[in-house]
Structures are given as structure tokens and as C-alpha cells.
């Protein structure tokens, strides 16, 4: 029984890393007032770039850097159009997902079925020896450890530093921030870029660690789930742990039922659950709309420009 639970908990964390990274990136991004619906596309491009770099260079480090950077580069397209040309943020995000999916499918065609670098589970010395907890938390991929550090770091930067204050000010009231001398377009561009880096990293985790290899549409909607989780955790990186674990937990249950061939719930219902649950979560958050309104950056989705 304990073993089963440990197994489920370990897989839960393993399955939640990508959503967690993408969610936190999205939070940084949206806190500055820019909505980016292109996370799914950036994750796919990141997954492909990471896998390809690993395949051709054999270096895990280069692979991770390439994956994250690819996500960041693609996000700059969104930044250029929404911040530079004032295009509709919803449409531009959708276009980014279409473009990213297209790029990844097109460039990745020759890499389907190839092998590349794998980043395996790496038990942390001493910590992994703690009974139960050690196995759950510290017998994971290095990506998970990176997430353990990056998520609190993101929270710290956003809420405890001057940089974070400026970023949030831009997201809450761009006009006032501008009057106070903040470079609004630059701040927004940088936070969109950081969001892209996180999404790229999330994709890289999938193609190097979680399900090593390149497969078209291998993100399976995790980018969209991340966008829902941003709302669910009220734009707070620390709460993103819970949102991502919710998704990871359901995925783990799916594995568990499959592994033990229990027929309690039909497998297609299990497959639907993460998506249905995400919708459920959105409904729940909307029901408490007061808190959501106060948590949401006031200028989210509002383009900024000095009109003479």
C-alpha cells in the first residue's frame, strides 16, 4: 500500500514538471500585462530544439540551452506583434501556437524515431535516502530539481525585488508605470521572453527526460493546461505547485490503473480526466470571481501605447 502510494506520488511529480515550468513562465509573462496563448507552440519548438541539439551534439547542457532558447526566440515573435505592432494578443498567441506546431512538425520530420540525449533520474545524495519522501521528491530528473529552485525564485523576484515590482506595476497600470519613467515596452518584451524560456524548458523536459524522443504533438495540450493553471493559482508561482500536481496526479493515476490493470474506470475516461479537471478548476475559480479579479493583473491583455 505504502509502496503504491509512493509510486503514485513519484510519478505525479514526474508528470507535473512540464506544466509547472510552463505555468510559472506564463505567470511572469502575464504579470507584465501580456497574455500569451502560444505556450503550447513554444513548448513544442522547445521540445524539438532540445531533442535536436542533443541528437546532433550529444551534450545534455547544450540540449537544454537550445530548447529553452528556442522557446524564448519564438516568444519574441509574439512580443514583436503584440507590443511592437499592437496586434490582438489572443489572436497573436493562437497564431504563435499554429506557427510553432508547424515549425516543429516540419523541421522535426527527419528526427521522428531517432535517439538522442536522455536526461535520466538522478537521486540526490543523502536526500534521496530519506524514507518515502526521499524517493518521492529527490529521485527525479534534474529538471524537477531545477523546477524546485526556479519556482520559489520566480516568486521571490516577482514579489520581493524591485525588478518584480516594476514588472507587476507594468501589468497593473502601464500608463502610470510609464509616467514614473519605466520603459513599458522593454519590460513587457523581457518578461515575454522569460516566459518563452520557461515554456521552451518545459518542452525540453518532455523530449529529453519524460518521454525521451521526438513525436509530433508530444505536448498533448499541456501548454493549454498551463494557461488554465495560471488562472487557477491566481498568478502566484508558489501556488503553481498545487496546480501542476493536480495535473500530474491524474496522469499518475492513469499509469497506476494501467500498470495494475484495474478496470475501475475505463481508460478513455482516465485520459479525459486531466482536461475535464482543468475545466472544473476554471469553473471553480470563476465561481470565486472576486478573488480572481483582484489577483488578475489589471492591464492583462491591454495594449500600451503613448497616444498623442
Amino acid at each position, binding site marked *: 500500500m505504502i509502496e503504491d502510494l509512493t509510486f503514485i506520488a513519484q510519478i505525479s511529480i514526474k508528470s507535473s514538471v512540464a506544466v509547472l515550468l510552463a505555468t510559472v513562465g506564463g505567470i511572469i509573462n502575464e504579470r507584465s500585462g501580456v497574455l500569451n496563448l502560444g505556450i503550447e507552440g513554444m513548448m513544442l519548438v522547445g521540445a524539438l530544439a532540445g531533442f535536436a541539439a542533443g541528437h546532433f551534439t550529444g551534450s545534455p547542457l547544450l540540449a537544454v540551452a537550445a530548447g529553452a532558447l528556442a522557446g524564448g526566440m519564438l516568444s519574441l515573435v509574439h512580443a514583436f506583434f503584440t507590443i511592437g505592432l499592437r496586434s490582438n494578443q489572443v489572436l497573436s498567441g493562437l497564431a504563435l501556437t499554429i506557427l510553432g506546431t508547424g*515549425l516543429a512538425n516540419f523541421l522535426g520530420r527527419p528526427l521522428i524515431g531517432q535517439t538522442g540525449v536522455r536526461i535520466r533520474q538522478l537521486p540526490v545524495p543523502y536526500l534521496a535516502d530519506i524514507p518515502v519522501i526521499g524517493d518521492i521528491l529527490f529521485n527525479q530528473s534534474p529538471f524537477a530539481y531545477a523546477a524546485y529552485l526556479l519556482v520559489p525564485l520566480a516568486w521571490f523576484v516577482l514579489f520581493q525585488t524591485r525588478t518584480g515590482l516594476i514588472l507587476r506595476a507594468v501589468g497593473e497600470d502601464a500608463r502610470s508605470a510609464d509616467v514614473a519613467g519605466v520603459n513599458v515596452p522593454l519590460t513587457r518584451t523581457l518578461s515575454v521572453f522569460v516566459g518563452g524560456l520557461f515554456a521552451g524548458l518545459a518542452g525540453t523536459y518532455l523530449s529529453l527526460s519524460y518521454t525521451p524522443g521526438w513525436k509530433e504533438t508530444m505536448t498533448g495540450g499541456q501548454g493549454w493546461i498551463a494557461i488554465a493553471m495560471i488562472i487557477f493559482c491566481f498568478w502566484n508561482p508558489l501556488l503553481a505547485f498545487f496546480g501542476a500536481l493536480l495535473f500530474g496526479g491524474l496522469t499518475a493515476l492513469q499509469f497506476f490503473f494501467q500498470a495494475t490493470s484495474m478496470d475501475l474506470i475505463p481508460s478513455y475516461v482516465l485520459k479525459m480526466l486531466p*482536461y475535464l479537471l482543468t475545466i472544473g478548476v476554471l469553473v471553480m475559480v470563476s465561481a470565486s470571481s472576486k478573488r480572481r479579479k483582484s489577483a488578475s493583473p489589471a492591464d492583462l491583455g491591454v495594449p500600451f501605447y503613448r497616444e498623442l
Partner: protein
Amino acid sequence: MIRIEKRIQPLRYQGIFAATSAVVIAFVVGCAIFAGLGVNPLTAYAAMGKGVFSSADAFSEVLVKATPLIFTGLAVATAAVMMLWNIGAEGQLVWGGICAAGAALFLFPQTQPWLLIPLVLTASALGGMVWALIPALLKAKLRVNEILTTLLLNYVAIIYMEHLFYGPWRDPAGFGFPGTAQIPEAAQLLRFAGTRISLGFPLALLCAVMLYYLLYKSVWGYQVRVIGKELRAARYAGFNVTGKILAVMALSGAFAGMAGMVEVCGIHYRLQTGLAVGYGYDGIIVAWLAGLNPLVVPFTAILLGALFVGGEQLQSVLGLPSTISLILEGALLFGLFTGQTLVRYTVTISGRSKEVS
């Protein structure tokens, strides 16, 4: 540094200007990709063009591809006119397909064609409608963001469809292939002489015209457009916004559902994997490229259809993955944004920005 200034008056013919710039920019992006791959862009575009225009047969395939795209384009446009985002046309299309196949195979298998086809069409429209009403209700009653709910429901619909044709609906005589049995001949849409163009195409055109009259020539449509443009004014005028959200999304879902029907009854003749290939998402591009005008939707759908057929040609002639059409689709949208900006603003790119004092 980019400097953007508002034009005193927007350029004339904004829609045409924006759409043209979309095509031009997508063309240039395509050139860059081909050149990057070491293929002469002219050779590549010639191959695409040849694939589309070389024969009446080739061009008929464009209209085959355009048929579901018109429906999904109308679906997206219907919702977008009211500033609702229906990103769920894919899932609604799938439900349309499920209902069409189900009605033809199990509900009314022995019916005459003149009765069966309308029944199947109604079933598919209802299927798409019900699936679209879920996010619509959540939006209208609880203000749940419809972008995410419509999109997430796509995954659910596809998983359910796969369950059906891998499981309970699988053709017992199908040698284990995933897919239902063939639908009865009475439910198959009539095809035009020797081509794969079915009755679905004129039906799609008819829907486009009807939607135009509904949106632009009726009081109901006027109210919908006012809600889309100025929600507060509409509320002040006492328009029933909640009811409109439900009605508009239902109509939108019905169009997407019919896209599923014309695919199942006009092309595949069964429910199988080829149904969810992204026409729902393509509908977003079709609709916005058409400036949300239902009468323009068929033209942009044909343009996209030509892009797909040309892309397939690239694969067979030059060995380039046909997924290049997806990149060009993205480029079309970003090109459209560029055009939309140029219509309203002047853009100057200079080395140094001059501070406005």
C-alpha cells in the same frame, strides 16, 4: 527603434489591404524557408501551383478541402463577431462526425436518402451545437473563459471519438482496423461528376449566404454585432446578452458540426482517424483572413485549401514535408496582423528614436 503613429484616417479598403499583405508576407516567409532548405523558391512555388491548377481534377481537390474549412470558418466568424472565441470548432466537428456516423449507422439505417441525409445533417448540427453549448453556458452563467474551455473540450471529444471507433463502434468486419463500418449508401452525399466534391460544397456556400443575411440584415444580427463592438452600450440598450451568448455559440457549434458531417458523409464514409486533422483550428485563419465577413469566408477557405493541396504536392514532387503548409498558415496570420497595423498606423523604423517632448 520602431515608432508607430496613428493615421488620421485608416487606409481605404482595409480588409483587402490586410488580407493582401498576409498573402504577400506568407509568400516571402515561404521563400525564406525554401531558400533555407536549399530549394529554389520558384521551383517550389511552381510545384505548388502546378499541383493546384494543372487540371480540373487537381483543382477539384482544393474545393474538397475548402468544404469543411468554410463550415469551420463560419463557426469561428459567427462567434468572433460577438467577440467570443470559439477555439473548439475541432471538437464540435468531431461531435458532428460522431453524430452523423451514429445516426446513419445505428439510428436510422433503413431510411430513404431524401429523408436520411437531412436527418443525419440535423444530428451532426445538434452534436456540434450541444458541445459548443457547454462552454457557452459556463461563459454566460459563470463567466468562465471560453477560449480555454472550448479548446480543452477538443481533446475530450477526440479521445471519446477514438474510444468509439477503437471500441464499441469498431467495424466487426474491418480486419481490426480502427474505424466504424461504412455508412449506408443512402447517407452518402452525392458527388459531382468524377470528383470528390460532394453536395457539402454548395451546402457550405448556402450557409455562408444565410449567415451573412442573419448577421448583417436582421435585427438579431445587428444586436449581436453591437454586443461585439460595445458590450456596455448593448447592456444599456437592454439587449439580452446572456441569451445571445448561448444562441451565437449554438449556431457556431452547429456549423462546425456540419463540417464533421460533410467529412464523414462526403469523404470518408465512416468514422476514422482522418476526421480530426485540424480543420477546426484552420477555421480561425479562414475567418480572420476574411475579416469575419461570411461572404468572404468561402474565398479564404479556398485559398487555404489550395495551400494544403499545394503542400501535398511539395511532398510528392520535392520530398518536402507537407507540414510546411502549417508554417505558412502561421505566417498568413502574422502577415494579417502586420496589414491590420499598417492600415491604422504609420510605422517608421529608424536607428535612433527621437524623444517626444
